[in-house]
């Protein structure tokens, strides 16, 4: 506690951060009997490492290019250990209506939208990880799209960790799309070092009336990384919010994704592919909270689990009493490619309205031997046949990505891991 207290002294907003710290200390990490973290190593989690606030980026432009990421010809913001690195970022061609700034600066300088939404979508009072992130927030990224602005170039946020020693980082993102705004965001989370880094990520999304926001997240921070990722969104009427998450590596990855379509005629699409090998533990907890009528949500989560990996999927859909004419669909499918891989899956539908369409499906199985044989009988090697079927399995999700280069890149990345 003393260690934390002294650290908060130098923060931009000691008062807010002190309150968040108090929340964190009050809530604490998930307890041994936590139902929400039933299968997760985050129960009884302790912070074993130093809290890193100073980024020491040694990455060069050439190094950045070597990462060979797609969608880098538009706007690029490079964050290292949660801090903006302007030398590597490229926002020269920033279109009118789009505003990008380090989040703490935006708040301190009094950006109205930043102040209005920060900490309102993901609340420190309710969640220990959000509180921890808020307490130690030192930089972060603020993305603001003005009313009626459709942002043509893709915004690529490159979120990197680089540490010599084991460390904890607290990346933060706030995206505000005002009414009628539209933006497509790609985030790649990669690690440049082998140190065991714990990333406690929080992103908040405000999707205004008639706005359209899509978000594509690649999680590939290496086998020594641990990531707790909270994504929380609020949608206004007639808006569309779409997320695609591809998880490829990480010692432990937990994604808490909370979607609140908070008005009528919202469309929410959440898609994910998990490819796990070795000892990976990937835990997705999604929550779609239909509060008002005429909403639609489509959820599709796919796991390809090999080695001794573990997948957890807990998909909660709430349809509140007022949310008549809700159309909610959830699908969770898993292929286990080894005998030692495990999946725990739990669809959780709570429906309090009577005129709704809700469906969910969960299926777990092994590779389809008959399909493999068919492909081999057409000359494909066992490995090529296997890859083709697994890519097709993931294709239900990747096929929904409208950014061609990204879709191609993700398919290649998936293929490499199979």
């Amino acid at each position, binding site marked *: 506690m003393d260690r934390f207290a002294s650290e908060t002294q130098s923060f931009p907003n000691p008062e807010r951060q002190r309150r968040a710290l108090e929340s964190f200390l009050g809530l604490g990490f998930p307890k041994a009997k936590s139902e929400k973290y039933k299968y997760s190593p985050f129960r009884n989690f302790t912070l074993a490492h130093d809290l890193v606030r100073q980024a020491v980026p040694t990455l060069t432009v050439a190094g950045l290019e070597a990462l060979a990421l797609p969608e880098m010809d538009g706007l690029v913001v490079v964050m290292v250990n949660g801090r903006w690195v302007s030398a590597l970022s490229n926002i020269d061609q920033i279109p009118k209506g789009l505003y990008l700034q380090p989040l703490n600066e935006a708040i301190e300088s009094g950006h109205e939208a930043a102040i209005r939404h920060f900490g309102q979508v993901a609340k420190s009072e309710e969640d220990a990880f959000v509180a921890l992130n808020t307490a130690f927030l030192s930089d972060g990224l603020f993305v603001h799209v003005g009313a009626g602005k459709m942002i043509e170039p893709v915004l690529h946020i490159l979120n990197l960790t680089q540490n010599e020693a084991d460390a904890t980082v607290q990346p933060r993102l706030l995206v505000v799309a005002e009414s009628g705004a539209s933006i497509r965001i790609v985030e790649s989370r990669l690690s440049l070092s082998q140190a065991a880094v714990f990333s406690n990520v929080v992103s908040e999304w405000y999707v205004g009336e008639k706005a359209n926001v899509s978000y594509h997240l690649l999680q590939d921070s290496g086998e020594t990384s641990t990531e707790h990722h909270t994504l929380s969104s609020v949608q206004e009427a007639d808006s569309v919010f779409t997320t695609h998450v591809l998880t490829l590596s990480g010692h432990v990855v937990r994604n808490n994704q909370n979607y609140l379509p908070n008005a009528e005629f919202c469309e929410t699409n959440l898609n994910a592919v998990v490819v796990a090998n070795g000892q990976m533990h990937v835990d997705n907890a999604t929550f779609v909270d239909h509060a008002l009528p005429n909403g639609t949500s489509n959820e599709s989560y796919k796991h390809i689990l090999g080695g001794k990996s573990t997948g957890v999927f807990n998909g909660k859909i709430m349809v509140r009493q007022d949310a008549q004419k809700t159309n909610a669909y959830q699908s969770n499918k898993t292929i286990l490619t080894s005998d030692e891989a495990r999946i725990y899956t739990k669809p959780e539908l709570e429906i309090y309205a009577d005129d709704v369409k809700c469906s969910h499906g969960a299926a777990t199985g092994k590779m*389809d*031997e*008959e*399909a493999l*044989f*068919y*492909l*081999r*009988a*057409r*000359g*494909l*090697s*066992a490995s*090529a*046949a296997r890859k*083709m*079927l697994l*890519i*097709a*399995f993931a*294709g*239900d999700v990747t*096929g929904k990505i409208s950014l061609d280069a990204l879709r191609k890149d993700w398919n290649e990345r998936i293929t490499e891991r199979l």
Partner: protein
Amino acid sequence: MLVIKNLHAAVEGHEILRGVNLTVGPGEVHAIMGPNGSGKSTLASVLAGREEYEVTEGEVTFDGQALLEMEPDERACEGLFLAFQYPVELPGVNMTTFLRESVNSVRKYRGLEPLSGAAFLKLVKEKQALVEMKESLTNRSVNEGFSGGEKKRNEIFQMALLEPKLAVLDETDSGLDIDALRIVSNGVNALRNANRSFLVITHYQRLLDYIVPDFVHVLVNGRIVKSGTKELALELEEKGYDWIKEELTLEAA
């Protein structure tokens, strides 16, 4: 081309093939007929290398090589083609991607360069015409939502693309209407030549009106019990399989 000697095969411990002997020369079309459960499809599966079939005795040489030693994909690359009785639906696997991967895998094995996109599309167009296949099918997932007839045409289409030395047609006529049967047969006949052999497995004689075989064999209880020319098929059509079974019983007695 294909020499099968004393082939015995079992599934889950049950012996199904009990000593099959058969020799197929280059360019020959052999029909294998037989009642249900006689082992016809097992024979096709064993030749193509389906894993759940265990060969307990005997040998098969294909173009001089030990076929049973090869993996299923090696057999395909060496020029053995199985037209499936039940073509498998592959949701999410695009037809064009699949066909291209298949054709190029076989080409690579044979030491040929992969086909360029343009050359591949030209080939596809040409072979599609052979089985009167709708072009739109190549934009779909493999066999997904295809009608029974479309699936069987798709098999023959793939055969045409891969240009095998030996094609095994496993009940390709089952479930077809007369138009589809004619189309499929025309496709097969167009591919007949002096070097390509066919093993046509069928329950009914009708297919052999269209694909006229050089030889007809009757498989009963895991053995070829009678061989002849196409007239044998007509006789079977007329009398059914019972008379052969009776003959066998008499012989045994």
